[in-house]
């Protein structure tokens, strides 16, 4: 703002005022606005508009091929008493909680491991990324075979080892199915957590570890007092993303189980798709999708306030 004011001559000046065009041309705020326009247009068109439309749709009874009319909260009232919807909420929370926690634990462990000096370091780091690079649907199909009721390699191996005597019905049994999709999600999500935390670990100066070693810290104390606290900002960001990705997961579950058996693996995203697109009840599907928003906002809020507490990161504050 000060720039704008500085460039404007005082009102009392007798000199000729620069033309409006000239003033606009040199106005930095206006120029900045023009530069932001493409990004803003893109975000509005592909993010804000669909989001707004989705929320609006959740207040209508729109179906595929038939425009809806405004019905207020009727969709939500309907969902409130829908046990399958509540089951999907439970499934989503269970899925997110377990998968994220395990992804964090394994990811952190892998990152610590990869941060050490070892032969073929670059290659091993690249290999770790593979599950992340493979298209989700492809890995889902691979898991589909691994979990197949008849041809599962896991069942086959365990039978050969003599540990079990018949095939495990991975995707046909409620609890096995839940475990199986969670495992597949973990397999896919670990590289993201591991590589990002590894990047964070590499920002920690080695001399801090040396100083801690001389101060008498054991391996565990170095992790507890140096690595972990210095990594928390990155952990907060990574885990926020990880939770958001997991909570909104669709592809993997849809490709593996389509929500079955008996809705045991239906997540909010897959249920929304089934109701909205497959069954054609767009309004109801939109309402399920919209119901995810509070959960996501809560996840973001937790990490936001978690990050704000760390005073030592904020520099410049000298008092």
């Amino acid at each position, binding site marked *: 703002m000060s720039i704008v004011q500085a460039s404007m001559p005082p009102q009392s000046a007798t000199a000729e005022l620069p033309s409006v065009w000239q003033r606009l041309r040199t106005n930095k705020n206006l120029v900045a606005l023009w530069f932001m326009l493409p990004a803003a247009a893109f975000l509005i068109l592909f993010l804000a508009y669909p989001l707004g439309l989705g929320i609006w749709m959740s207040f209508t009874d729109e179906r595929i091929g038939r425009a809806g009319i405004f019905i207020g909260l009727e969709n939500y009232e309907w969902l409130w008493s829908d046990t399958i919807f509540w089951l999907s909420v439970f499934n989503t929370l269970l899925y997110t909680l377990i998968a994220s926690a395990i992804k964090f634990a394994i990811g952190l462990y892998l990152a610590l491991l990869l941060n050490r000096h070892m032969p073929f370091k670059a290659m091993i780091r690249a290999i770790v990324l593979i599950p992340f690079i493979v298209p989700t649907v492809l890995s889902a199909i691979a898991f589909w075979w691994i979990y197949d009721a008849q041809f599962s390699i896991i069942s086959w191996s365990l039978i050969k080892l003599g540990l079990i005597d018949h095939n495990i019905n991975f995707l046909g049994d409620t609890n096995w199915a839940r475990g199986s999709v969670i495992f597949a999600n973990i397999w896919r999500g670990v590289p993201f957590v591991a590589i990002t935390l590894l990047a964070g670990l590499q920002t920690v100066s080695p001399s801090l570890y*040396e*100083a801690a*070693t001389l*101060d008498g*810290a054991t391996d565990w104390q170095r992790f507890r007092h140096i690595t972990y606290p210095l990594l928390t900002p990155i952990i907060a960001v990574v885990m926020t993303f990880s939770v958001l990705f997991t909570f909104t997961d669709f592809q993997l579950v849809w490709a593996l189980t389509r929500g079955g058996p008996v809705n045991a693996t239906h997540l909010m995203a897959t249920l929304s798709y089934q109701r909205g697109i497959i069954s054609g009840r767009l309004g109801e599907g939109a309402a399920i999708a919209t119901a995810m928003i509070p959960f996501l906002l809560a996840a973001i809020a937790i990490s936001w306030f978690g990050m704000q507490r*760390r005073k030592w990161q904020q520099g410049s504050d000298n008092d």
Partner: protein
Amino acid sequence: MASVQISDVRKSFGGFEVLHGVTVPIEDGAFVVLVGPSGCGKSTLLRMLAGLENITSGTISIGDRVVNNVQPKERDIAMVFQNYALYPHMTVADNMGFSLKLRGADSNAISEKVKKAADILDLARLLDRFPRQLSGGQRQRVAMGRAIVRDPQVFLFDEPLSNLDAKLRVAMRTEIKELHQRLKTTTVYVTHDQIEAMTMADKIVVMQDGIVEQMGAPLELYDHPDNKFVAGFIGSPAMNFLEGTLKSNGGQPCVETASGAKLPLTMAPTASDGRPVTYGIRPEHLEIASDGIEAEVAVVEPTGSETQIVARIGTQDIIAVFRDRHDVNPGDKIHLKPRATAAHLFDKDNGKRLNN
């Protein structure tokens, strides 16, 4: 407090040897400075002393104990790092008390010791701050405080002043020296700055390419450098070196340069007439005299307390420093006379000292 004995220590990284048998005795309570150009192995030696690097061969003892296979934390040493290595997520007090906390000291004892160290270093009002909120000099002091709190047998300093600006560096130099005089803890200090070495050390160890070139008291090194490297490394502006051959000159030995100038000596090694040598003379040991060597003034640099004159003898630049203010200008011809008693004579090939 303890003495430190470094005996024939070697260090190899892979197949590459960087320290070729270094022996340095360090007396109890001494302030020893390891100095040398970068890559000379001084920091490696310090890190070996700290236990951060393995010792390939030879022994290091602290007190009566050989510490080759002793864990860093059991060596009872404290180190101040070049980048201070302060824990960014801990307050000044927590940084200083961290080692005590790890040892399981109770919090009253910790805060008491921290407070005592903070008083010594004038950090008392900064104890609640985080490292980011401190200036370079304050961080440096916290790093020292962290070492003091430990009350170790040996302090190690790894180029602690190189991240500070010139003025602060001089101030901290004095502060560290004062601290040492007060605590009398054996100190090993690594630097590439010979002024730091000269001003702070009881004993300087000059290193180059993994060997010790010379060790001794600062002025001993200044007055009697063992070789051309030490002569050129210690002292600022550096010693002037002129190539020439020894001439007996009928009882008045001198070094004659290619351009025919005769550089005076008080004595020369016997039976060395015609031997190619390097003649070394410090800038402050040149005076303007009519019977000196003719030189053309190239640059005049007054610093106030003294004046530096860069002059050219033949094709070679020579630096002279005068406390008096001579009225000379670039392009002037002056006559510079080396003080014969202060001349240093080195073998031209291996750089070894030849006179007394």
